[in-house]
């Protein structure tokens, strides 16, 4: 950026930087398995990016690296909001396929947990919990225990466990992978509404090509192990999207077919 270019002063530094950037990020596990090889990509703020790839290609490893749960090999770097990612921060929320609800406390207590761990004030926690329960339509079920919920509600609560910290970045590791098709479609729409409201930066790992095309601004395709990014596809359907109209675009089917082909489904 040249000095004196318009708008340079008003914009804070962090805003100009991309939300997530990785440079030559590799991961070799003990025993020599190379899970990721020199992965470089950037995700702009508020972008919704999906990652597609065959099983075992290192998608989850990549997500854990971005989340600060595991370090990248020396020589590569992972930055989140401009900062080198070293440990999990409250700017980043991760939702996994297996829900992380503790069976011995209620839905509400599970949702509060992360806020308590991060040391938020009691009144703040109460207020946020109330809002989250409301947004996720879980208020009537807040006193139930996780095993008393249906799969879809449990996964919704799992989002609540993360959204309570109001992270700017959401890392979703196949969050709908264990759900039936109908519930999955429903939660896709709910996720979309949440994102339209909160404008978080999202990385979604999924095995469902239509899900990725429907939700994303951009899809990254990864190769078989060792994982590398082999395609970066922009999906530019207008927003707000909804299942009927978005899926009716002829380009929708085109994208799905291209990606199918790329993933080896002929």
């Amino acid at each position: 950026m040249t000095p004196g270019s318009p708008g340079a002063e008003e914009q804070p530094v962090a805003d100009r930087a991309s939300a997530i950037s990785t440079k030559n990020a590799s991961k070799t596990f003990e025993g020599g398995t190379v899970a990721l090889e020199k992965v470089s990509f950037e995700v702009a703020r508020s972008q919704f990016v999906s990652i597609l790839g065959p099983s075992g290609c290192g998608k989850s490893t990549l997500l854990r690296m971005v989340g600060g749960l595991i370090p990248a090999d020396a020589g590569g770097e992972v930055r989140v909001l401009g900062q080198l990612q070293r440990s999990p921060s409250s700017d980043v929320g991760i939702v996994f396929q297996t829900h992380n609800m503790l069976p011995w406390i209620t839905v509400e207590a599970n949702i509060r947990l992360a806020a308590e761990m991060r040391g938020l004030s009691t009144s703040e926690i109460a207020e946020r919990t109330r809002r989250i329960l409301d947004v996720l339509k879980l208020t009537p079920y807040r006193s139930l225990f996780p095993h008393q919920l249906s799969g879809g509600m449990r996964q919704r609560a799992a989002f609540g466990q993360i959204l309570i910290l109001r992270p700017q970045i959401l890392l979703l590791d196949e969050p709908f992978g264990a759900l039936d098709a109908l519930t999955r479609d429903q939660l896709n729409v709910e996720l979309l509404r949440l994102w339209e409201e909160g404008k978080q930066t999202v990385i979604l790992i999924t095995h469902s090509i239509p899900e990725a095309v429907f939700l994303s601004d951009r899809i990254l395709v990864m190769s078989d192990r060792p994982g590398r990014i082999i395609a970066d596809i922009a999906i530019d359907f207008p927003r707000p999207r909804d299942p009927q109209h978005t899926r009716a675009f002829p380009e929708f089917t085109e994208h799905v077919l291209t990606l199918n082909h790329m993933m080896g489904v002929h």
Partner: protein
Amino acid sequence: MPRLSFLRAVPRSFIDPLVAFVVLAVIWEKAVDLLGIKRYLLPPLSQILATAWKNIDVLLRESAITGWEVVLGYVAAVAGGVALGLAIFALPVFRRTCYPFIVIFQGLPKIALAPLLVIWFGYGTSSKVLMAFLFAFFPVVISTMGGLAGTPVHLIEHFRAIGASPWNTFRRLRVPSALPSIMDGCRTAMPLAVIGAIAGEFVGSEKGLGNLVLLANANARTDLLFAALLAISVLVGVLYLLIELIARRIWWRGL
């Protein structure tokens, strides 16, 4: 069977064992007469119950003594076992130093220690409490260690992701997730504590149900011996029931 319809209100889980028990009691009662078994070998059930009733004050007194030994030894075993399990889990130095000894000691027939304990601590309560403790201690240690090590990996990762401190991870994740396993250890340990106390009384005592068994035996009072055995079973049953009631508060096993 319209006449038995009132029975439907009582759950099968209660009726079935009761029926089995009555059938067995009748067989016992009749078999002793029909097969001509000598009374000093196997008294009929009615005689045992009569003896028990006649000696109810003795049985209650001795039960209270043995029960007290068991409770003291058991509580110490649970407290000490959980503490040692935690220490071995949390501090590698304990794992290296204490754990090998525990494994070796565990293999030792603890009943062989009873004479030594009587020499050291005398004929009174303390040697029996120690025996109960020794018998009950190891299952609690092992189950505590196992439970703590068995915390689901995905939950540990989740706690890391939400920035939980090691202490909070321990307190709010590891301990509750270990409790069902620890509870299993406590269940196993309860009858073992009774065995320990009775074994201690066998080796050297002046009181307690174990002592009563030996006395009855020495006097060829098989009916009293059986009555003492009956008291021991009742004691184990009552104590086990108490543990079960506590265990019910930890209901999240396998969820």
